[in-house]
């Protein structure tokens, strides 16, 4: 169990403690304030080099990691895989060795293979590795920013600050994660974060889109999405990952929408306080109705906005500071 991510790699949320998660959320609060300033930049990582390696396409994760690094005054080496030697068949190991030879302090890695981030952390043990999504495995910063967004919304409603709420409001919070659990690294990181924080997590999905080992996960499976609507404090939808062939796991997209999509009719049956989340990019009309995505209780844009302070917090805690004396 990791009790603080300070000077550690961030590869998965599975072994990260409640205290460590709260430390990231609290640190991110400081960076929300930095992002409100006219000059949105602090010198915490001045002279440090962060390499951003995205072997898979991404808009929000890549942009928010690079924005985060720049706002901490780090230099960013950004590898555009499409125009790099990877296209000539260079191996991951050789690509990392090349970038490491340029002198880097951290790698932010997105890769289509599960376990790629762990592999890279073994190639370059002196460099901090931050997993920005590896195959079907984990997407830790998404799990952290989702928890951060929930805490932010609930503390605002309670008229207090996220810092003051700590982790209490997660106790017994009822989170329902819906859709393509099987192919979703977001679901895996979300579940790890929410359960470490003390939430009650349920998942709803067609049997074909549940992972084979679901009984070992700290969740309860709900057969019928409709019956869980009124139960949920948070409904977290997932993208149906058609590029991973999820389309062939359901009879038809229309059938999936009818049974597990958040349609307008279902959204009306949620309690008005229920928070609707989606990690993006959305398939409007498939897992979420376009009108539902624009409801005030849908916090999808806020999730994107919180990506920057959370990633600033993760970069700051993992990269700044000497590892000596860290408990």
């Amino acid at each position, binding site marked *: 169990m990791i009790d603080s991510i*300070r*000077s550690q790699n961030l590869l998965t949320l599975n072994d990260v403690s409640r205290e460590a998660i709260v*430390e990231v959320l*609290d*640190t991110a*609060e*400081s960076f929300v*304030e*930095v992002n409100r*300033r*006219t*000059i949105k*930049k*602090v*010198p*915490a990582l001045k002279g440090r080099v962060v390499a951003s390696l995205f072997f898979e396409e991404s808009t929000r994760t890549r942009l928010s990691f690079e924005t985060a690094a720049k706002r*901490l005054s780090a230099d960013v080496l950004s590898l555009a895989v499409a125009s790099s030697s990877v296209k000539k068949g260079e191996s991951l190991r050789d690509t990392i060795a090349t970038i490491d030879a340029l002198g880097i302090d951290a790698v932010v890695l997105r890769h289509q293979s599960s376990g790629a981030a762990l592999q890279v952390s073994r190639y370059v043990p002196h460099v901090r590795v931050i997993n920005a999504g590896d195959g079907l495995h984990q997407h830790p910063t998404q799990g952290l920013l989702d928890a951060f967004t929930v805490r932010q919304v609930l503390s605002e409603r309670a008229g207090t600050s996220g*810092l003051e709420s700590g982790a209490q409001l997660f106790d017994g919070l009822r989170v329902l994660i819906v859709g393509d659990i099987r192919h979703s690294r977001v679901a895996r990181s979300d579940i790890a974060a929410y359960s470490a924080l003390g939430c009650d997590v349920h998942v709803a999905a067609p049997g074909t889109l549940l992972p084979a080992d679901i009984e070992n996960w700290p969740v309860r499976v709900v057969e019928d999405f409709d019956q869980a609507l009124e139960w949920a404090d948070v409904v977290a939808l997932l993208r149906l990952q058609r590029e991973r062939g999820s389309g062939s796991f359901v009879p038809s997209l229309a059938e999936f929408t009818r049974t597990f999509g958040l349609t307008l009719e279902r959204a009306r049956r949620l309690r008005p306080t229920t928070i609707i989340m989606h990690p993006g990019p959305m398939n409007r009309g498939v897992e979420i109705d376009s009108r539902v995505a624009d409801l005030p209780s849908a916090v999808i844009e806020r999730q994107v906005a919180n990506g920057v302070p959370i990633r600033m917090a993760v970069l*700051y*805690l993992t990269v*700044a*500071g*000497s*590892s*000596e*004396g*860290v408990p």
Partner: protein
Amino acid sequence: MSSGELRQTPPGGLAFFAKSQLLTGEEVERALKRMAHEIVERNHGLPRLSVIGLQTGGVAFATRIAELLHDIVGDDVSLSLLDVSFYRDDLNRNPVPKSTATTIDHDLTDQTVIVVDDVLFTGRTIRAALNALSDWGRPRSVQLAVMVDRGHRELPIRPDYVGKNLPTSLDEAILATLEGVWIGTKGES
């Protein structure tokens, strides 16, 4: 607090073991009153004045000084807090400090800024604070008020208002609160 009893300073930092008390709460209050009067005198009735307390030790003193300035002049004095963690020059050398709130919500251009901290030591915290403040504009002037100046400066920085000058040795530690000032040592509890 009696001799030998321990208190945490700063929160989450090393334990502080008190050797002896140097100022009582009353003496601290009297020093703060004098400093407030000096601030008013030097700044001709305080137009455009911002008091900024450094997290975490300077917060209580900044709050009290802002109250005293308000009592003397009758006008509200703007009070903000500043955490300088992200601006420290020892970030690469020490474990990452826990960050706390920064609450400066206005442009400091053309303001007179009074930076308040508990203890002035090497001057590195103040260097970090000066860097941070420049991100909120260009103050007309920045002045420094500290409860205790314990010497051992490593940078060309001097305070404008001092509660008490206390020559110390490097292995001693100072704890300054509104309830009093103590000298002692820091170490693992």
